[in-house]
């Protein structure tokens, strides 16, 4: 790239300081285009909407008529969301449970699968395909598949374990104490496969001699994994953390397919959609929830960016 060939000796013969170089006009144009176009795209499709959302979140705009019909209401939307909007706190809680489940259950499960399959056991390719299969399905399809499994009267599980015609059925999707966990099983089913593939790629990159050395030194399998293999996976671990956090925050489709994200399956993304899209059209109110989601999303992003800068410095 143009910029990397920069530290050349200047025309005057004296070496230039640092990386500052005189660029040809062509280089300048190339750089302007290469930086400017993405910048414009990012500005128009990410920053402008984000800032517009923040602005709208302080209004009561109903999406009908121009923005001039919106009234400034200050922080009233935020106040109402926190105090009198019943689905809000459950949604926050569910997003946190979702993240916790992915971090502490689904991701370790994916790692375990990857670690075992990396040992080249017989039929490893078949197992890999089986575990990876859900990843190629969209969450909408996954929601549909699991709906058929969980349905109280017509579903697979209840028909296997109880008599659905009489007596009490287990209401997997309708009982608000149960349905989040039922859905998380489906989510974990997909997430573990995703993580497994990422870790498999990571494990292939771990130098086998490290493990041999650990084995010769008499380290048990768990010990070797914890002190030798896992630290060697550090670069992939960062990717995994980012992927997991993103998956938890953007969760939407599966609950929307199952019961439109109500009755125990509330998520912040669903509340944004419920208020803005559809007939409700409470654009201002929904924007406030979106802004709350933005703020929550920024936390892990900042941590990640800060971490990777730290690493580059050291």
């Amino acid at each position, binding site marked *: 790239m143009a910029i990397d060939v920069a530290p050349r000796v200047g025309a005057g013969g004296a070496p230039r300081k640092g990386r500052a170089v005189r660029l040809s006009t062509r280089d300048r144009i190339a750089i302007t285009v290469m930086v400017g176009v993405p910048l414009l795209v990012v500005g128009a*499709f990410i920053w402008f*909407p984000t800032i*517009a*959302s923040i*602005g*709208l979140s302080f209004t009561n705009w*109903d*999406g*009908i*008529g*121009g*923005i*001039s019909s919106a009234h400034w209401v200050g922080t009233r939307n935020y106040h109402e969301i926190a105090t*009198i*909007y*019943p689905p809000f706190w459950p949604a926050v809680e569910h997003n946190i449970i979702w993240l916790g489940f992915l971090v502490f259950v689904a991701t370790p499960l994916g790692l375990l699968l990857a670690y075992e399959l990396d040992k080249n056991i017989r039929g490893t390719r078949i197992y890999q395909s089986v575990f990876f299969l859900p990843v190629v399905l*969209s969450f*909408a399809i996954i929601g549909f598949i699991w709906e058929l499994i969980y*349905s*109280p*009267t017509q579903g697979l599980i209840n028909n296997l374990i109880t008599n659905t*015609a*009489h007596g*009490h*059925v*287990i*209401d*997997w*999707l*309708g*009982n*608000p104490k149960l349905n989040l966990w039922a859905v998380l099983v489906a989510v974990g089913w997909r997430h573990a496969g995703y993580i497994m593939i990422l870790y498999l790629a990571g494990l292939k990159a771990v130098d086998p001699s490290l493990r041999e050395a650990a084995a010769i030194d008499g380290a048990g399998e768990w010990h070797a994994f914890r002190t030798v293999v896992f630290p060697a996976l550090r670069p992939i671990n960062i990717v995994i953390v980012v992927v997991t956090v993103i998956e938890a*925050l953007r*969760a*939407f*489709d599966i609950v929307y397919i199952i*019961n*439109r994200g*109500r*009755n125990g399956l*509330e998520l*912040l*993304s669903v509340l*944004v*959609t*419920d*208020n*803005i*899209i*559809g*007939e*409700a*059209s*409470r*654009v201002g109110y*929904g*924007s406030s929830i*979106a802004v709350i*989601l933005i703020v929550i*999303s920024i936390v892990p992003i900042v941590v990640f960016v800060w971490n990777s800068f730290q690493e580059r410095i050291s």
Partner: protein
Amino acid sequence: MPDESSPSAAGRMTRRGMLATAGAGGVAAAYGLTAGRARGAVPTWLQSELAGTVTFGSNASDPVPKQAYANVMKAFTKKTGIKVAINTVDHNTFQEQINTYLQGRPQDVFTWFAGYRMQFFAQKGLLSPIDDVWASLAPSFSPAMKAASKGLDGHYYFVPIYNYPWAVFYRKSLFAKNGYTIPKTWDQFIALAKQMKSDGLTPIAFTDKDGWPAMGTFDILNMRINGYQFHVNLMAGKQAWDSAQVKAVFKQWQELLPYYSSGALGLTWEEGAQQLVNKQAGMYLLGSFVAQQATDPADHADLDFFPYPSINSKWGQDSLDAPIDGFLMSKHPKNAAGAKQLLAYLGSAAAENIYLKSDPNDTGANKNVSTAHYSTLQVKAAKLIAGAKHIAQYMDRDTRPDFASTVMIPALQQFLNNPNDINGLTSSIQKQKVAIFGS
């Protein structure tokens, strides 16, 4: 299906913001943000081409009604020489996108619902009044239909085509076999439910995974206990939700809960209908579309219904939910004269006859509709509606769309989960109602 994740949801919302901001700057003409400007953007040669065509936006995406509309439009073209360009959109998508649809380039005439759900858009200036169309239609419609077709400003906006009643459905053969009789009062209703339970049936099929079916029970209980006028005022935001009257409705509702399908919040209305059709459940309060699930003609013929039992003798059985479907004209139709001709035709008995021939679950809105093709169920439904003193449109059509979807659906589901906290529930609804209605 693309991921409907939060960033894209936020993006969609702000896309509207962008359009609106652009509109303020006058750029919107190119986007057709308002139909008026969009009309200016249509080249003249195309306008003259369009003069002989009316555009029709339809939410009838199911094959049967889709074909029915195609037949109606064919007859209209034959009669008047005006062509109709039909644009059919998936039923739910059409509903979800109505806001953007009406502010974009809506077709001249489009399908919609009566009630506040129509009046809201009329009030927002997104519809054309059609009083001149009604000058010819008026004699063919009942006063209730006429009232349901007017906006809050007293002008006509809506042409009804059909409606369908909400009533308690049951299987005649099951009632005959077990010697059940039709309950007329609440006590008889509860006694029958008890009897059915001891006979090993689910007395009342009830499902609310979709969120909206529970509204039907609230509506009818409220109308039976507090009367139609209170119900309409409550829906319009003129009554408090934490009042003794509303609490009485939930209190009454509690008595029904032991007789409901187990796992009701995890069941769709179709699954409830299957319970009824398979004789696992004895009764089911639903719209007459429940009969669609009885695909075997013998089962279909065995279905019957009775009006919801009376609770307060002051009101008896004088009201019911019977939502009306019909048509509206957009604010700036490209072909206003043709659109009005089409609306007048759609309101005629001739058009409704063609439509209803292929739809065995609804009843015609026009008084002069031929009942020769009606099934026994349709005849009975028409009689029930005609005999009712008051007709409501169903909660999600009678109140503000944002209140129905973001407040009432979660609130009713919360009641079903935790039926004992009526005070907490009603005060929560009331607070949100004040926030949305502004008083």
